[in-house]
């Protein structure tokens, strides 16, 4: 499998007082197309920092992080934004939908940035809403939706541009068990149908049940990297 994410000797430090805090230390990782992988570890283990670097929101201090052939440390701000806009989808714990816009418009926003034609946009949006089962809510506002529905809109927004990679930071943390399973099943289904690589930062057991691969992080280092042969849930 050709890796779409290749991380070699990655170090990330942050200045703290007179010294430095090492968030990631000599991380080596390769992720391929269609993976459903979780970065698992306790708070402060470096999950989010790694997610930031893969999402070109941050740059390595040392080492190399290549995402879809782009060396993250060498991208300009404009190139980083273009990479995120075209190839990377984001799903947040708190959904972060734009409250004044409808479901349809929230999902439409990434496509507006790509200057897509109205017809093409409409087709893509309706398809994305269909994936998450919200075609009947296209004119609803986020305030009229449940938490699970909001997160499904966030998934549609991340997926509408057909990205190669989706980064999800604790996507089920604000959801009850039933909704958590629903959205994880949705993501798993999209992963399999569209071959999108999903990368989670989580320490939620519910999420871990769905992962095909788990990378355990501890104090900024990869402690274990396990492939789960038979995920517990696959519907």
């Amino acid at each position, binding site marked *: 499998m050709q890796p779409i994410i290749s991380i070699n000797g990655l170090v990330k430090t942050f200045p703290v007082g007179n010294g430095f805090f090492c968030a990631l230390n000599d991380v080596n990782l390769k992720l391929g197309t269609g993976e459903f992988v979780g970065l698992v570890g306790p708070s402060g283990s470096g999950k989010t920092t790694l997610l930031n670097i893969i999402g070109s929101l941050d740059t390595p201090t040392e080492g190399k992080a290549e995402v879809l052939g782009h060396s993250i440390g060498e991208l300009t*701000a404009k190139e980083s934004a273009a990479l995120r806009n075209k190839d990377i989808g984001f799903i947040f714990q708190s959904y972060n939908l734009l409250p004044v816009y409808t479901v349809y418009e929230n999902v439409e926003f*990434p496509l507006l940035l790509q200057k897509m034609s109205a017809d093409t946009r409409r087709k893509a949006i309706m398809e994305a809403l269909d994936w998450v089962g919200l075609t009947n809510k296209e004119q609803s506002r986020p305030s009229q939706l449940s938490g699970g529905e909001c997160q499904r809109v966030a998934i549609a927004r991340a997926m509408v541009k057909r990205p190669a990679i989706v980064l999800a930071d604790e996507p089920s943390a604000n959801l009850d068990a039933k909704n958590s399973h629903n959205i994880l099943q949705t993501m798993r289904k999209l992963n399999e149908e569209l071959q999108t690589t999903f990368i989670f930062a989580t320490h939620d057991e519910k999420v871990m049940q769905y992962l095909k691969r788990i990378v355990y992080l501890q104090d900024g280092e990869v402690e274990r990297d396990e492939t789960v042969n038979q995920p517990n849930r696959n519907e």
Partner: protein
Amino acid sequence: MIKFLWKGIIRDKGRSLLPVIVVSIGVLCVVFLDGLMGGVMNNMVKMTANFQTGHLKVMTRAYNGNEAQKPNDLALLEVDELIKDLHQKYPNIDWNPRISFGGLLDIPDSRGETKAQGPVAGSAYDLLSDDSKEAERLGLQKSLIAGQLIRRSGEIIISSDFADKFNVQPGDTLTFFGSTMYGSMSFMNYAVAGVIRFGVGMLDKGAIILDLSDARQLLDMDNAAGEILGFLPDEHYDREITESIKQDFNAAYADNSDEFAPVMLQLADQNGMRDSLSYMGSVSFIMVLLLVFALSIVLWNTGVLGGIRRYNEFGVRLAIGEEKKHIYHTLLVESLLIGGVGSVIGTAFGLGISYLISIYGIDYGAMMENLSMMIDPVLRAEVTLRMFYIGFIPGVLSMLIGTALSGQAIYKRNTAMLFKELD
């Protein structure tokens, strides 16, 4: 994208309502003040033109040099011929000879003995010719508070100031004492036709009005006049047209060194009107500038508050892949839309209020009694074409500047913190 932003502005009252209100109020002030100042300026120009300067004025050079003294011994002669020439050269201009003079008015008792005397400032206008617009131009009918206008030779109109002071009524006979243009003594009896009050201190103090023919007879000024005033069609002053006529007329006499040769001035050349007109223009400009400054500061703060409120939204947009520069541009586009809406609303209200004040006016005559300014005591705004767009300059500009300043914060946003900030 603009449609998308517009939806956000319409739906998110927190984003648009306060800025729209601030811009509307600011624009309303600019439009209304512009209308009011335009009205005051127009009023001042009109009053000054009608009573003192005309849009154009022809005098002898000598008279012009001593104009403040109204020296009738230096008056224009052969006025009929001069006016005929003026009509031929400038057919659209209404030319009117006038005479200003001073003297004593004697009020007799029932036996014909002098009861009282008072100094008066007289003005003579062509009031009895059929085609004369002078009575209408001076607003004599609406300023009449007793009696009637001059209808025949031998009648006089006096100011209410004089009438009150000496208890003179319409129908009384008064005697004027003065001197002719050649310096000899002159006196004549006149019947008081009416009592007039303009409401302007300098016009009402000891003023008397005669018909031009009576004044010519009284002052021995046959076919003479102190001044010939010219008025543009529709009584509308135009600085460029009058300047061009003035230069054309004066060029014809450029080689004539006679001090009694006629000279033409336009309104802006007289009574410091050029400075007044420039001053009012500068005041308008400064007013707009100050308002842009004040509104920009308010809208800067509003923008900062909006930025804090929309912190998450900007974070998501950055994460999704929108460039900081693009977010900044969309904020500026939003500010143009909001500034535009606020300007439309402010302009509409400003025009509405100005229109009402142009119709009904504000009477501040009581405050004007002791003023020597040539200005109508009823303040009226003037609705002009300029008012339809002038408010957009401070409205849109201040919103744009306010947003441009507050929006800079987006460049300080650290994308590495987005996941933490958005969770």
